[in-house]
């Protein structure tokens, strides 16, 4: 078992419990306000749950039971990378330095970090952009670089928050292909409101409604044979096609 989560945040905002196997990709579906982003914040460490725990590869990242055995690992020490809707590339660094940021922060020397950066830029097919400043990139290019930047840290868990949300429709398919390729070998939680993303990238799906899980299971199962009306509406009745 790779990821074991039980989290409660501010009665009502989030109340979930799930696990994720090694190399599995989990999609979190649900409407806006369902608690998807909160879940990601809990996993990345940007938000402390009121109670519960998060264990990754055997390491306890958070444990809030209200007693003396509470523990909490800061975001930078978790080995969890976050990719948001906006690429949020550091505007004052070049593309290469952006990608090298993670390794540098881990103590890797400058030359080695550049090599790692260039390797990942090749992987996401963005080598030509290496010396550019982020403000010159298109949405799709920036998102590509952001993927490289996140993966360059060799995270144990990768979190994706609506990664195609800000992209032009024409660019999304290429991104999806790229992600499908690089996500294959790691544990990923991807938050999205688009069931197509889940179908394309995820092994398993959980559906959130007002902070709670209303349905979960393998992707095709849940999306093509939704058990709840809620899920059916959410997935545009894909199953009836």
């Amino acid at each position, binding site marked *: 078992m790779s990821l074991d989560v039980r989290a409660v945040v501010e009665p009502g905002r989030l109340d979930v419990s799930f696990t994720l196997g090694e190399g599995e990709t989990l999609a979190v579906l649900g409407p806006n306000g369902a608690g998807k982003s909160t879940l990601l914040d809990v996993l990345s460490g940007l938000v402390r749950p009121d109670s519960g725990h998060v264990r990754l590869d055997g390491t306890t990242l958070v444990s809030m039971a209200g007693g003396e055995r509470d523990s909490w690992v800061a975001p*930078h020490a978790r080995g969890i990378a976050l990719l948001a809707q906006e690429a949020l590339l550091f505007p004052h660094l070049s593309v290469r330095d952006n990608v090298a940021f993670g390794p540098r922060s881990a103590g890797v020397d400058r030359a080695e970090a550049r090599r790692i950066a260039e390797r990942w830029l090749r992987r996401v097919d963005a080598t030509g952009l290496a010396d550019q400043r982020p403000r010159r990139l298109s949405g799709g290019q920036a998102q590509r670089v952001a993927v490289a930047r996140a993966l360059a840290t060799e995270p144990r868990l990768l979190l994706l928050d609506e990664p195609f949300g800000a992209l032009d429709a024409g660019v999304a398919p290429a991104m999806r292909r790229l992600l499908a390729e690089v996500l294959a070998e790691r544990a990923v939680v991807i938050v999205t409101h688009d069931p197509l993303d889940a179908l394309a990238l995820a092994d398993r799906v959980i559906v959130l409604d007002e902070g709670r899980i209303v349905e979960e299971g393998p992707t095709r199962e849940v999306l093509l044979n939704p058990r709840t009306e809620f899920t059916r509406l959410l997935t545009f009745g894909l199953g009836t096609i």
Partner: protein
Amino acid sequence: MPETDRRPGSRRQASRRVTLGGIPAWVAAVAVIGALLIVVPIVSLATRVDWAHFGSLITSESSLAALALSLRTSVASTALCVILGVPLALVLARTSFPGKRILRALILLPLVLPPVVGGIALLAAFGRRGLLGAPLEVLGVTIAFSAVAVVLAQTFVALPFLVLSLEAALRAAGSRYEAVASTLGASPSTVFRRVTLPLVLPGLVTGAVLAFARALGEFGATLTFAGSLEGVTRTLPLEIYLQRETDPEAAVALALVLVVVAVIVMVVTYGRREIR
């Protein structure tokens, strides 16, 4: 993207022409009056200068000592403001704790207080009989009547300028980049060094320039707390005040020097960046 005038028939870039940019003409008129209020007295000052003797007036021994002292102390105070102000601005902008509002109000107090009051307060703290000054005196350390006192007085009045400017920049920048940086594995110190600081550098420079200008012009607190001795504590403003007694021409000449130094600093820093 450069702003192009939307009015029909005009296609040229709006860089050389005078454009209102959408504000009503009367607003611009009032703005002109506001600008004149500041510009006219300064220009009038220039007309009062005894240009024939200007050179000798400003290069007298006391004038040069005062100018050198002013520049030395202002640079030192600005550095101190930056060292203390950056953490302060960060705390005010990003953290939360009970009483934060009161703390901010206190930090900004020197902006509102008459500088002489600031000087009195500094004496109460660091003077020979002051809260901290008395124990220091016992240890043989006297702060009043020294250049250190000048730097303290200048820092006291200039710090709020830097904190205010920087805090605004920090708030505007938000902390999204910092959040991303920490998920990429950067420790808080690394985030501060490689992300926060570089992103608010423009705001920091603006704040530092304002602080420098304020420190350069500081008078009341310096006079009350540090005293006035040539080469030690008599900064340019104090020298001007003294010269008025016997040599008004010298006072005017020195005043113009102060204005020119301030203008140079402002233009060099503001001129290089942004908003044309």
